[in-house]
């Protein structure tokens, strides 16, 4: 088993009730596995924020592993996580 940290903000944080969550996952678990685990735990309110009606990740949800956007990781959602990795799940943001 491995320990993975999940960090999120704003409306997603509200749904989770906190910004940081520690997950214990099987060895070889992926980013997608983390999302599935969280959806199982937090139910439809989280699912609606992350996925479209066909189960695809909403295009404006930004996922990062240790700060690197998964778009630039070779296996993207299938990226295998390591002990201590931090997964960021970021809702759309603007301003600044």
């Amino acid at each position, binding site marked *: 088993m491995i320990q993975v940290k999940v960090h999120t903000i704003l409306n997603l944080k509200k749904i989770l009730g906190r910004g940081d969550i520690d997950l214990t996952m099987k060895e070889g678990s992926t980013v997608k596995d983390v999302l599935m685990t969280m959806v199982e735990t937090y139910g439809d309110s989280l699912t609606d924020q992350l996925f479209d009606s066909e189960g695809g990740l909403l295009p404006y949800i930004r996922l990062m592993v240790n700060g690197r*956007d998964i778009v630039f990781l070779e296996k993207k959602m299938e990226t295998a996580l390591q002990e201590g990795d931090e997964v960021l799940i970021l809702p*759309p943001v*603007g301003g600044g």
Partner: protein
Amino acid sequence: MYQGGYTGKILRINLGSQTAKVEETPEPMANDFIGGAGFGIKLLFDEVKANTDPLGPDNKLIFASGPLSGTNVPCTSRMSVTSRSPLTGAVGMALSGGYFPVELKWAGYDAMIIEGKSEEPVYVSIKDGDVKFRSAKKLWGMKTTDTQQIIKNDLHDQNVRVACIGPAGENKIKIASIINEWRAVGRKGLGAVMGSKNLKAIAIRGTGKVAVADKEKLKAARKVFTEAMKESEVLYPVFANTGTPMVVDATSAIGIFPTRNYMTTGEYNAAETLGVEVQMTRNVGSEPCYGCPVGCSQLKLAKTGAYEGILTEGPEFETMYSYGGVTGVDNIDAVIAADRLADELGLDTISSGVSIAFAMELYEKGILTKEDTGGIELNFGNDQAMITILKQMAYRQGIGGLLADGTKAAAEKIGKGSEKYAMHVKGLELPAYDVRGAKAHGLNYATSYTGADHCRGYAFQEIFGIPVPYEVDRFSAEGKGKLTKWNQDIRTATTDAPGMCAFLFDMAVVGIAAQNTASLLEAVTGLTFTPDDILVAGERINNLARAFNVREGFTRADDTLPERILTEPLKGGASKGNYISRDELDLMLDEYYTARGWDVATGAPSREKLAELGIEYVADQLN
């Protein structure tokens, strides 16, 4: 003859002779520079000669709204103020919203050029064609809210809109702002230019309307724009309810919200004390700009300690950084109080906060001592010290006086190797992004014509992950030259020049921005604008601004970043280990100049490029 959008008139005000005259807005200038910042930069380049003293009578101050301002297109009450910056010596251009920008148009003017210097403190009142010069002797020394109110009383018009300076501008503090209503023309020391002219304020009221060339066409273009606003995933309700401060949470999450003068960025989560959840406990309403259905501008009330009862508009995200993160202050009420104080004194919140943070680091390193600070314990996080120094800055007193002209000037006076802790580019303090984790944003700081300015070529791809025109790896240096050129040109052309709030660009029309601007401009003005014309206008404006800086002696060597950004990897957070090495900066600069068609060795626009953009006359002044 203009059919709409443009009033066709520019008001020229000479403070020395106390005269005003109306000139025509040249149609080629409208076609080529659109308006707003485009007009400001064109007029600045043509009218302010090289080596003009920014605080002398020959410098000019150009207020310009956009062709969309004053129409029923939402979120278009925007104006630029352009001058030679006393802080940087480069182009000083900053924007503001509120109501003043539309009053300028309704009074009948596309732009207003302020020149000369009054012998005595003066303010100018404008009601349509009636321009009066009035004594400001009794206003001199007054803070900005009181100034606005007294002028309204004097003019027997509570609806007149006032742009004014506070004591900081009067004292020619080089980080002084101009305040209109609750809004600020915040950066580059433009308030000091007003002060140098003995101009306390401009009060304006317009009773006219802005014509629209094709109302049916505008109806259609406006529908596309407002539909994009409605479909935005972030504009409603999140941004409307929280405003810019939510970016504290977003930038903290990705490890680029700067803390303690960039020494500890990413090492702790500043959003816990300064983020949206805390801020919402202080919100008491909003104060939208004219014609804005979003209303991101939040009013906040301090609730604890010595700050209890202080109300301010904001603090915006940038100020949460400058009086919070970068100074290490974690008391939201202190940030609210400092924001109000800075606006009352007429100080740029970013430059003043970053200058105080610079001094805090020097104090903790022993470079500045208690003797230097006049007994103030200037440690990070000391909010009372921050408030005290802000007051000192406006009056050039004590340690605040040393910091009053920004970090570059302060470092030159202090010496002892302090320059390497001064977080500025070309003298303009860094805004709220630690660009070690956002390299295109860093290149934009290095190359923006105003210095370290997040508003010129905001790299939203890196900060918000918006994949337009394509997905961008924030840690990579490659490809950032072309991207930065695109970011600078499109933002200039779709927000700064036509008079559109930049937040609408990021959050509503980013994928259709050039087309959106072209459609709105065509409908409003009756002139022809294609999306390509829009982008070329953005490029033209950026080239002319660059040419102004080259004429002032700026070269590639000035397109750099603070030493800390170039040498110290981030020690914690989601951007840990990253920095912009000198080699990476060089690579990005080479690519940027190449993309721009500029000389790679000097960073100067080539004659060929200037000719291509229809401004070859500029090349004759660059040798």
